[in-house]
């Protein structure tokens, strides 16, 4: 059993030689290519992730931009609508006011016309009544004045006239 705890120098030598050679050879043949492949893959993954992250950031930026634009548009639409409503209100008021004014004018003018026509009609009526009464009076007068009275009146008027205008006095 002493052989168990008595290291054999020869085997130790072989072990070290073997191991050192293995390290040198495997670094070239096995671990080198393996690490290269792994590093390449890791780089590719990193690159992919980077690309994906930038794409996502881009997308988020665009999204936020769109959202802000959307809210801006909404606000604009609302303000435009409000404006339009206010102006329409104003327009309506103006129209109603104008309509009211023109209606008042029409009412006023027609009343004036009616008044004028009424006056005209009254004047007409009065004239006609006056004429008719004059004519009726004339007729009545014509009927009442007889010939004698007319000659008395005529001679009276003639005498008055001769007194006023002696030059016209006829010699009788």
């Amino acid at each position, binding site marked *: 059993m002493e052989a168990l705890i008595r290291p054999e120098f020869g085997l130790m*030598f*072989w072990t070290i030689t073997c191991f050192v050679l293995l*390290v040198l050879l495997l670094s070239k043949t096995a671990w*080198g290519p393996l*690490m290269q492949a792994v590093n390449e893959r890791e780089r590719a993954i990193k690159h992919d992730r980077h690309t994906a992250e930038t794409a996502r950031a881009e997308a988020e930026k665009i999204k936020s931009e769109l959202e802000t634009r959307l809210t801006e548009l909404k606000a604009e639409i609302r303000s435009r609508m409000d404006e339009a409503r206010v102006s329409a209100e104003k327009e309506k008021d103006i129209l109603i006011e104008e309509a009211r004014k023109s209606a008042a004018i029409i009412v006023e003018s027609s009343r004036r016309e009616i008044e004028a026509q009424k006056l005209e009609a009254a004047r007409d009526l009065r004239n006609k009544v006056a004429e008719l009464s004059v004519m009726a009076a004339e007729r009545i007068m014509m009927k009442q004045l007889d010939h004698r009275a007319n000659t008395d009146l005529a001679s009276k008027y003639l005498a008055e006239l001769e007194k006023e205008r002696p030059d016209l006095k006829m010699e009788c």
Partner: protein
Amino acid sequence: MGLKEILEHHIVDHVWARFTLGTHVFPVSKHLLMLGIASLILLVVFPLLIRSRSAALAPFRSIIEIIVLFIRDEVVVPNLGHKGAAYIGYFSTLFFLILILNLLGLVPYGASATGNLAVTTGLALTTFVLINFAGIKEQGLVGYFAHLVPKGVPVWLYPLLFPIELIGLVTKAFALCIRLFANMIAGHIVILSFISFIFIFGSLSVAVGFAVAPISVGLVLFTLLLELFVAFLQAYVFVFLTAIFTGAAMHPH
């Protein structure tokens, strides 16, 4: 045949041949064969798996990738910092070599090379070299040794603490070596003991032996599963502690 012989047969290395080179003797043994098999798997199967583009092998590729990434993200980088990326090859190789050596011990006719003190000492020595290499490379030779003693220690304690810290350097590596060795050997010893129970009780009476057999086999299966877990765990622990020590050598705080 006693338990001692059985244990020796199963746990201790079988040396098949020795050849001498100068004054040193180099054995060709079962654990060396396991080391060779593990190296072959690592050198041939891993590069093929990693380079292959076939869908059928994709799961294996993913497993290797997941483990290497775990070592990079959870073990190396937190301890060594971002300069540690250069050491990923070392830590990955260390992990997979220990793991495959551990697992080969669970394969029939296999043996745990990591249950051999020589192998674990070899691994611990490379770790020791790595710790000091990384520390000196990061802080410079003078800075490294100046920072061996933690900050805030009174000056008069330096003569006492400096040797302690120097010993600590060695102890870290030594602990690594012993930990892996003991963990791998313990499972095998427990399994062999459980199997031996059958024959120990069987020597009392055959009936008792048969009665004990199912219990023993059940316990052996449980221990085998535990060993499977320990195989992964110890590989991870070895790598993790190496990373912590290396990180501590690189960034003294």
